[in-house]
């Protein structure tokens, strides 16, 4: 196996990449190789799908499959090799179907890539023997590290885009331009592009596509559950039977709330599910009792201690400990061998487990945190904000966004939040906020200094806020007293980063370490052309940001 798609990738002797029998995340060799093969097939499938889109006869089943299949390969999503052998067979079946459709429509099928012709072996051992052609580093001797790195950047960004698109799709948001854009990107990758300027251009095109996808997801979430409003969320348990819902999928949470209505079971959010409380139509369920635990990397302890079943709706899953193996369920793209998977929205077993488990025996003293500062709330308070900036009460905005992880370097984000001067506002999104969202930051006038904008996909909301502010001040976004501090962990953050670059946002601080797939030459392009800066230490970076703005 070889995988370097996430921030926690193994770094040994100056060599980056998980290349032993098991990656840092727990993904084993077999699963990693099968994921590579699946991606390879998806390039071929995307190529055929792209032709169907051009022909005006897209195939919805294939397009949805592509989103879902890409999503399963993100970091900390699916570790179940049985799932991947199934997806590989399905990808081949769909590929044949699309080819037949194109042929029937009289389309010539010339110039198809090798990926579109790939025939996966039926036997697992033979399949694994085929995995070499599908490695992210295939062709390295031919094209060099820079091209491999850029292809990886596009592929990983595309995985992030697909994950967001899948979340939007399950809520009914199905847009032709999104499916077509994803097929186009896969088609591009299928032909082993090697021209650096073209690759860079494609990366930015993907960033633009991701903006559309995040907008679609925002429309899907707000359409289904209402516009987030500032909401106090209880962070201490209430006596009673309990279910914990983790991951990012609001639809799953909604279905669980529906299925448990009137059962007396309380539902708690975990990790990135926290922003769900801000959505009025989710908040309206009285048994959505609160938020439990913190960010994903603490789940082994937190899930073991939780007195009820757990449902994992998307990343980030870590190898489950024996203590809760029988009561953690996966849903959607998520999987781990030997864990029960929820199918057809059937939560009967989860409910049964919740009834059988003791639940919380006592109600703890109430503690809350505030979430739900999406764009409407902030734009609604635009007058106040603009006044505060003009009067000098607010000197600067820091958007601290992205994922958390277990690496020690991540204390940077805690330090950053804690050291930001009193006259600055902190906007936050993604699970990185768990490093500081229980700290006291106080208010500036009526405005809390720490504003939780939502999940990482709510970067869309943040972008809207920034452009609205720029509009109000009659300046460009880069001239706003705003600094973006991005903590990246996995591929959705790569997609968001590409969007920020495509929008021309400069001076993004990126950390805690830079992506391993970016070579020094590519990093130099990011720094020189796009003004991306690696993080240094919190105090120095705050000072630099404030000095630049002054």
């Amino acid at each position: 196996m070889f995988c370097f798609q996430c921030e926690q990738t193994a770094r040994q002797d100056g060599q980056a990449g998980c290349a032993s029998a098991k990656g840092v995340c727990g993904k084993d060799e077999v699963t990693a190789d099968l994921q590579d093969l699946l991606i390879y097939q998806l390039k071929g499938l995307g190529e055929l799908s792209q032709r169907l889109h051009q022909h005006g006869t897209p195939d919805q089943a294939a397009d949805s499959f592509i989103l879902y299949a890409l999503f399963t390969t993100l970091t900390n999503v699916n570790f179940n090799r049985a799932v991947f052998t199934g997806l590989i067979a399905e990808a081949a079946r769909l590929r044949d179907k699309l080819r037949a459709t194109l042929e029937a429509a009289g389309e010539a099928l010339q110039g198809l890539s090798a990926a579109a012709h790939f025939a996966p072996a039926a036997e697992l051992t033979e399949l694994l023997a085929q995995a070499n052609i599908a490695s992210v580093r295939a062709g390295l001797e031919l094209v060099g590290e820079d091209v491999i790195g850029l292809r990886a950047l596009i592929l990983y960004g595309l995985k992030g885009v697909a994950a967001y698109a899948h979340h939007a799709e399950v809520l009914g948001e199905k847009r032709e331009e999104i499916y077509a854009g994803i097929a186009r990107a896969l088609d591009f990758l299928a032909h082993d592009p090697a021209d650096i300027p073209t690759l860079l251009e494609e990366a930015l095109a993907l960033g633009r596509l991701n903006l559309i996808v995040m907008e679609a997801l925002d429309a899907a979430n707000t359409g289904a559950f209402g516009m987030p409003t500032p909401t106090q969320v209880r962070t201490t348990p209430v006596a009673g039977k309990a279910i914990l819902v983790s991951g990012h999928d609001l639809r799953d949470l909604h279905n669980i709330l529906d299925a448990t209505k009137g059962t007396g079971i309380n539902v708690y959010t975990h990790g990135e599910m926290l922003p769900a409380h801000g959505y009025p139509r989710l908040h309206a369920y009285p048994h959505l009792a609160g938020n439990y635990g913190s960010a994903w990397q603490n789940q082994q302890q937190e899930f073991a201690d939780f007195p009820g079943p757990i449902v994992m709706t998307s990343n980030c899953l870590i190898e489950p400990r024996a203590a809760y193996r029988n009561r953690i369920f996966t849903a959607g793209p998520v999987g781990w061998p030997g864990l029960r998977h929820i199918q057809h929205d059937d939560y009967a077993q989860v409910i049964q487990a919740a009834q059988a488990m003791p639940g919380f025996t006592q109600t703890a003293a109430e503690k809350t945190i505030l979430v739900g500062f999406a764009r409407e709330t902030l734009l609604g308070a635009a007058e106040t904000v603009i006044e505060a900036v003009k009067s000098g009460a607010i000197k600067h905005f820091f958007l601290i966004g992205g994922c958390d992880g277990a690496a020690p370097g991540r204390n940077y984000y805690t330090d950053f939040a804690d050291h930001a001067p009193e006259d600055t506002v902190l906007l936050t999104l993604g699970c990185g906020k768990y490093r500081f969202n229980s700290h006291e930051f106080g208010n500036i006038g009526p405005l809390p200094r720490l504003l939780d904008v939502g999940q990482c996909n709510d970067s869309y909301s943040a972008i809207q806020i920034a452009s609205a502010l720029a509009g109000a001040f009659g300046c460009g976004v880069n001239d706003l007293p705003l600094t973006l501090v991005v903590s990246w962990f996995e591929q959705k953050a790569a997609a968001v980063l590409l969007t920020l670059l495509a929008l021309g946002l400069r001076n993004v601080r990126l950390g805690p370490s830079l992506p391993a797939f970016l070579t020094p030459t590519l990093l130099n392009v990011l720094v020189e052309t796009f003004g991306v800066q690696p993080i240094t230490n919190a105090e120095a970076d705050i000072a630099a940001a404030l000095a630049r703005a002054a």
Partner: protein
Amino acid sequence: MNLTLLTRDEVRLEIDATVGQSALEAAEAAGLYPAAMCRDGQCGQCAAHVVSGTYEMGPHSPAALPPEPGGVLLCQCLPTSDLTVALPYGDAQLPRHSVPVRQAVIETLRPAGAAAMSLVLRLQPDAALGQTADFLPGQYMELRPPGMAISRAYSLANLPNWEGTLEFLIRLVPDGAFSGWLAREAKPGDRLELRGPLGQFTLDEASPRARWLVGGGCGFAPLLSLLRQMAEFQDTTPVRLIYGVNLAEELLPNDIFTPLREALPQLHVTFAVWHGAPGANAVQGSTADILESQLASTGSAADIYVCGPPKMVETVLAAARQAGVPDAQLFCEKL
């Protein structure tokens, strides 16, 4: 002193150990609970391997000690310097809570073949676990009858569930204290005390290889649990069962196998009868003989799971090694 536990997936757990404390006690004091049973150097459940450092071994049965250099029993291993010990299982399999002790009542008790009883227990609600029967397929429990000092370990035959049901297959030993009690006195409604789940005889789900399950007598119980797990998860991994008994009348009734064959179309079953006429559905021979001939005829590189009486397990393992199956692909549980 420092004690480092190194799990099979290479997680390093650092613990403080004081002089005179066994490695097991030090781990438990730190909130880690490595598998252990007799705590007396006899049962071999806490076997591990010292990677570096010095230690003394307290009194123990030589048969329980892993034969390889550095082999120790954690319950009798007294560190005399900083010590690093490798555990034969992964971090996620290392419990962070002491093994639960629970109460259960007998729900049903009936003969299973000529030499065994099928025992079904219902757990009483527990403060931490509620009504759940929480274990991993392949694990076992220690059972203690009311008012008796003896306890015996038996593998679970069913799947974890939320009704609190535990199913065992118990071999009737002529003079066995527990099985004697079971055959003569036990009746539905009787209470038992249980300690568990215990054991690491669980499926290696990350392995890409076929699974061959070899069981003798009541060694079939955990294999049944593993097969039921595969059936529940619609696991398509190639799987083979070689199930051996002494006499044809000891074979379990066929209705146990029917749902497995239906859910696992790839399942290949061989019944082996060691002594006497094998009958229509079985072949003559020991499980080791049959394993040997099937390994030779298929050339398979499967993972092999063996469970049964110690002697039978040893002969099967020897046959597998003889056929070139590496140790990493051998999983066993001795009854």
